């Protein structure tokens, strides 16, 4: 009898299969909790009684890589193994989709061979993502699966990666969306990510085999794949061996190998394997016991006075902080002592928790204490305010600032790390000097720590204590939690202890805050008095890591996690009496939520409608104010974004005898549309411009995107091309422009590589372009004669003649006339908007991005949001001509950026003007511009606000940023 053993150790689970003469006699699938060696020995011991003779073996899986090397057993790459197994078990398969804990894979089989693909590093963590989302919803993975079966609607959730998806899900939860709908939406995000990220244009059809743990256990996920891919019952195969495919493939590869005399030999090798070194470890958090004691005693002094609620009578003020993952309440007396506080996870249902808490509070207060004021802050602010008739809403940044300032009046710097967000303030002369908020990529650090601790079987408190003891903290990087998660797993497999991981995670979170959010390099930049707060700072390991990294002592109030609620309570002290629901009303309070689609405009936002006992409704999820059931603002404020949109979309659709040319309204076309429209019309073409993007546009083209880390404005281009092809145009034009318009104010006038050459990518990756003539000449738009000449010869080549030099020169002139006219009206409109604002005493916001940021899908209606906050909105290109060219410390070589720098200069020179920078995720060049723009603004005492945008649709984070800006301005008295 010959035995062959297949071992597949993934990021989360260990799978083993044992063959005896080619038949499976043993199989096991178990979570290994990163105790890889122990689990493996355990499994081998279990199968030992079955083995009687020589056994050959091979190992696979991401966690198997190192162990295979250590024990000198052949390694078989897992996707390769899957391919081998499928060829044997299901030879008529045309495509395999396999999801694991960390990696997603697709394999295509056809006559020409096998095409195997794995997800890119950014899109990692499929199974781990589902686990995390279940924790977020406070359900088990099984329950999540059951919930998903009863969905009514699907919310659009960013599918770029787990962190982005979470950013979309968290607010949905807090707005009261149904868990059933969220569960299904999570699955849909996984499906979209897999299909768009891996299939990249290749059609998934024929018999599709679904493999791997998550697809074996999650029935809802299966359904979701089936319906998205439109597969019939017989073509969607979920085999029983789904979890073991890799192990089977490995075992059959092993059959051909020389073996070991017995299983014991393998076991012995594992036992003797080197558990990995301690290279690349960090120094411990504490060098000595004394150091630790000094740390503890120093921080125990930072307390806020408390007073037993029983001993107090009189007025009291209530602050509620409805955060992303936790709910906090603080009741304070008139002398600002804390009477009562509450801090707990919101279990995805903050409304019920607050109702319960309020009832309890009323029972404590009795007749002695009257709530004279209440305020609510945090992600759930609007919902809670409406549900319980809370008096005031306060943006969380200002709440945290208010609390910190009360606690330490001479504070210079405040850092707040909550579950989802990191907020930092620099204070100068008693006022907020600058605000820094994390962007999507670095969000969720706080809650990640907690979720991770739970998954290891620890409470966050115990987990933190372990971290303090870590002797050799692991280095986990600081890009984002997806990367950290995969680094942790890696380090566990190398034998890192819980102590070292806990300490390492704390250090990573701190580095993320320091170097990504604050962008600080030395303590002196922060000032003497640094206050740290937010729930995450209750974790002593994080606190210590922060002090160590900064090399400076900081102050952590004992109510670090309650500071938002405390600040809200302080804020409400300006009130005399409160409208908050009384005990009677509260007892009668009920709450239900349902989902709907807004029909207010073409955006079709997904709404969540909350209904309360008194019939009051609260609607959320909409991008503008319409869906909220409010009337539009009484006066129409000037909005250059709308002006530009209207201008460009009202260029007429023309007809001509040379056929129709389609112009995709994306990327650089947003700047030069009038030029090309003019040229082609004058040449006798019909011109058709694609419609402004919607989510649907993106979905239409998402399957041919080759690089998932490109920016959203580029990815959406694919949809515009599809749309044009479907509309029956004869040709599509998007030129390659190395150089953009030379406005003669910068060192050079390049386009970014993506805007410049995206056509090359489209041509290579969109098969549907075969159906039309795709015109993408390399042109120089700064020399009319050259442009006409080149265009003429290009068109003659493409159309086999028919274009004369005179014609094209005339057309080019016409085009430039139209372009100049457009630019001129944008400038005039910009000036008019400024005048209007000043005449009417309105604030001005330069919403500064790129021309394509006016697209309503790409900017997600941020311009409208700004209008609703009573800002007049102008674009960077409408006012930059009013400022002198700006000197910058970097190479000023991109046309769009030169405009941006000048716009920043304009803002820095005008007190009534604020600049908000729109940055698309993945925009490499903005890694350079953002620091510069910030510098220009801050040098002149202005606030810098950056909004990082992507396919994420939820505006919660944007709203907080803009309101923080407003709050800071009000605080400072500039308004």
């Amino acid at each position, binding site marked *: 009898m010959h035995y062959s053993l297949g071992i597949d150790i993934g990021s989360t689970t260990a799978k083993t299969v044992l063959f005896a003469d080619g038949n499976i006699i043993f199989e096991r699938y178990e979570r290994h909790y990163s105790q890889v060696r122990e689990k493996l020995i355990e499994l081998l011991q279990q199968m030992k009684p079955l083995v009687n003779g020589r056994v050959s073996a*091979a190992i696979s899986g*991401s966690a198997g*890589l190192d162990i295979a090397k250590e024990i000198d057993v*052949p*390694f*078989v790459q897992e996707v*390769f193994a899957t391919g081998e197994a499928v060829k044997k078990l299901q030879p008529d398969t045309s495509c395999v989709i396999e999801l694991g804990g960390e*990696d997603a894979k697709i394999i295509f089989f056809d006559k*020409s*061979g*096998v095409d*195997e693909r*794995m997800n*890119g*590093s*950014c899109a*990692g963590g499929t199974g781990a993502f589902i686990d995390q989302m279940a924790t977020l919803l406070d359900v088990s993975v099984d329950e999540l699966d059951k919930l998903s079966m009863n969905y009514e609607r699907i919310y659009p959730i960013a599918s770029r990666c787990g962190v982005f998806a979470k950013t979309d899900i968290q607010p949905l939860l807090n707005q009261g969306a149904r868990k059933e709908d969220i569960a299904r939406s999570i699955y849909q995000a996984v499906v979209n990510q897999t299909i768009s990220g891996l299939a*990249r244009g290749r059609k998934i059809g024929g018999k599709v085999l679904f493999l791997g743990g998550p697809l074996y256990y999650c029935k809802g996920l299966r359904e979701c794949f089936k319906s998205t891919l439109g597969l019939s019952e017989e073509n969607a195969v979920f085999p029983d061996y789904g979890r073991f495919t890799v192990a089977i493939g490995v075992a059959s*590869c092993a059959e051909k190998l020389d073996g070991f005399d017995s299983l014991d030999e393998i076991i012995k090798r594992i036992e003797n394997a080197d558990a990995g070194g301690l290279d*690349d470890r960090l120094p411990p958090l504490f060098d000595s016991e004394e150091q630790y004691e000094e740390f503890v005693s120093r921080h125990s002094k930072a307390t806020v006075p408390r007073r037993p609620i029983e001993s107090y009578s009189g007025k009291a003020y209530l602050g509620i902080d409805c955060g992303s993952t936790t709910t906090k309440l603080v009741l304070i007396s008139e002398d600002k002592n804390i009477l009562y506080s509450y801090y707990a996870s919101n279990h995805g249902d903050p409304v019920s928790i607050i109702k319960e808490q309020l009832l309890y509070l009323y029972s404590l207060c009795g007749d002695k204490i009257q709530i004279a004021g209440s305020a609510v802050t945090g992600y759930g602010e609007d919902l809670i305010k409406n549900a319980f008739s809370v008096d005031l809403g306060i943006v969380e940044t200002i709440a945290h600032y208010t609390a910190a300032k009360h606690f330490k009046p001479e504070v210079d710097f405040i850092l707040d790390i909550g579950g989802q967000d990191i907020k930092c303030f620099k204070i100068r002369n008693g006022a907020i000097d600058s605000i820094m908020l994390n962007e999507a990529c670095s969000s969720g650090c706080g809650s990640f720590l907690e979720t991770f601790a739970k998954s290891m079987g620890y409470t966050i408190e115990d987990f933190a204590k372990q971290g303090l003891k870590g002797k050799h903290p692991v280095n986990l990087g*600081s*890009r*984002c939690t997806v*990367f950290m998660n*995969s*680094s942790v797993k*890696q380090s566990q497999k190398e034998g890192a202890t819980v102590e070292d991981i806990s300490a390492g995670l704390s250090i990573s979170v701190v580095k993320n805050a320091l*170097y990504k959010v604050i962008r600080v*390099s030395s303590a002196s930049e922060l000032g003497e008095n640094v206050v740290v707060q937010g729930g995450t700072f209750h974790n002593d390991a994080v606190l210590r890591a922060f002090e160590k990294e900064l090399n400076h002592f900081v102050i952590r109030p004992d109510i670090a996690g309650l500071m938002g609620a405390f600040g809200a309570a302080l804020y409400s002290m300006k009130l005399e009496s409160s409208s908050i629901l009384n005990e009677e009303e509260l007892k009668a309070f009920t709450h239900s939520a349902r989902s709907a689609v807004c029909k207010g405009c073409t955006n079709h936002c997904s709404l969540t409608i909350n209904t309360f006992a008194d019939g009051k409704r609260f609607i959320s999820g909409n991008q503008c104010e319409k869906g909220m059931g409010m009337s539009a603002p009484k006066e129409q404020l000037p909005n250059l974004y709308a002006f530009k949109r209207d201008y460009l979309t009202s260029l007429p659709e023309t007809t001509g005898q040379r056929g129709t040319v389609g112009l995709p309204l994306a990327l650089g076309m947003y700047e030069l549309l009038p030029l090309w429209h003019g040229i082609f019309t004058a040449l006798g073409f019909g011109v058709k411009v694609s419609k402004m993007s919607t989510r649907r546009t993106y979905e239409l083209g998402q399957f041919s995107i*080759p*690089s998932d*880390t490109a920016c959203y404005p580029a990815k959406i281009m694919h949809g515009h091309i599809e749309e044009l092809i479907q509309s029956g145009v004869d040709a599509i034009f998007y030129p*390659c422009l*190395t150089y953009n318009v030379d406005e*003669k104010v*910068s060192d*050079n006038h*390049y386009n970014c*590589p993506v805007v*410049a*050459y*995206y056509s*090359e*990518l489209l041509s*290579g*990756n969109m098969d549907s372009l075969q159906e039309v003539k795709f015109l993408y000449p*390399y042109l*120089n738009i700064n*020399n009319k004669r*050259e442009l006409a000449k080149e265009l003429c010869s290009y068109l003659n080549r493409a159309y086999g003649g028919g274009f004369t030099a005179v014609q094209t020169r005339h057309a080019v002139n016409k085009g430039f006339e139209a372009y100049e006219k457009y630019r001129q009206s944008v400038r005039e409109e910009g000036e008019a908007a400024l005048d209007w604002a000043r005449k009417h005493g309105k604030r001005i916001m330069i919403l500064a991005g790129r021309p394509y940021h006016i697209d309503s899908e790409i900017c997600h209606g941020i311009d409208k949001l700004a209008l609703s906050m009573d800002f007049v909105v102008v674009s960077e290109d409408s006012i930059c001509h009013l400022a002198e*060219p700006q*000197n910058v*410390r*970097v*190479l000023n*070589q991109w046309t769009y950026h030169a405009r941006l720098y000048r716009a920043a200069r304009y803002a820095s020179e005008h007190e009534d003007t604020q600049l908000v920078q729109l940055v698309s995720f993945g925009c*490499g*060049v903005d*890694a*350079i511009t953002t620091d510069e723009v910030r510098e220009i603004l801050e040098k002149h005492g202005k606030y810098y606000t950056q909004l990082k945008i992507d396919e994420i649709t939820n505006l919660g984070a944007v709203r907080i940023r803009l309101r923080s800006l407003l709050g800071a301005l009000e605080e400072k008295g500039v308004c």
Partner: protein
Amino acid sequence: MNTKKNYISFTKEMKKEYTILAPNMLPIHFKLILQVLRNYGYKIDLLETQGEHIVETGLKYVHNDTCYPAILVIGQFIDAIESGKYDPHKIALILFQTGGGCRASNYIFLLRKALEKAGYGYVPVISFSLNNLEDHPGFKLTLPILHRMVYGVMFGDLLLSLVNQCKPYELNHGDTERLAEKYTVELAKEMQENGVSFRKAKQRYKEILDAFAQIPMADEEKVRVGIVGEIYVKYSPLGNNNLEQFLVDEGAEVTIPGFLDFCLYCVYNNLIDYKFYRKRKLAYPVIKWVYQYLLGKQRELIDLIKKDGRFRAPAPFEETAERIQENISVGCKMGEGWLLPAEMLELADSGVKNIICTQPFGCLPNHICGKGMMKPLKDKNPEINIVAIDYDASATRVNQENRIKLMLANARQSTKEKLGSVYGD
């Protein structure tokens, strides 16, 4: 116009007492190139430091979304300044500046900003660029210097190519590296003592070819893997987690297109500016001459290797450029631009079907020229086996290696009959 000079010049006085620090990208080439500068009286140190603290330092002083090479190079500089090995007031830094629409043109400015942030704003940074973009009286790239540097690049490319062809097969571990090291030292010494002579160079080429052919090698066939990509992570072991060594350990033979191709590409781009956009009219004849001169030098070496017959010669640049035109225009010239897919095709046509395309995470030009060209190239050459690997401060090594292993498994599969096994060594 942004004409205000906001940098510190490297003065003639500085030349006498300052040590110039240079980042390492191509170990052999840079040793030779820097020797040229030493011969012209510069004190120069090549930074060969390694380790996690370099990335850490980089992340501290550079925007974390900036490309990985910038984080590494700047991290390496500041780490060196802080090492205590140098008097910060007596050093200058040198960085290559290629120009063009990629954000890499900004590295030098990011370096200056980082220095200022770290408190070393007074350290002069020299821009090493062919266009003399900046004014550094103490550092002038004269024709003789450039001429000698070309010599360095030629020998660098030859040695790199021979090392790659010999190392996987050497019977006595270390033979190849020792020989390469020996010639690097010898050539540098010779340059110092006798200057360079392209007449004698031919003699040298032959001698080197003979010496490498003497290395006792196993007669076996290995999976051949080509590396293309963003210039820094493609070559620098610090940038690509020692990719070449990893592949050799996995039992593969590595092929990396030479550095001269990249130099030619940079020169060629200037010609394109004239051809496509009628820019640089005045400089055109000079650039054209330089281009022809470099082509000539490359041809010389290629002919020699071919005639010798014992080693594989690289493809001439013009052929490489010609080959790719049906897939992408040579107008696509930011970052590595069209050269990147052109090298993929060159590799495939020369029999290297397995290719690793390396890039820093979020590399803009590579969205188009790297990942964006994989499908069209594969459509036309179905046997090509390409994997794109992103390098980044936080990407895990295992993730990268696992993907490379998948590529290798497929590579072995397709040559299974020859090799008899699909498993790693």
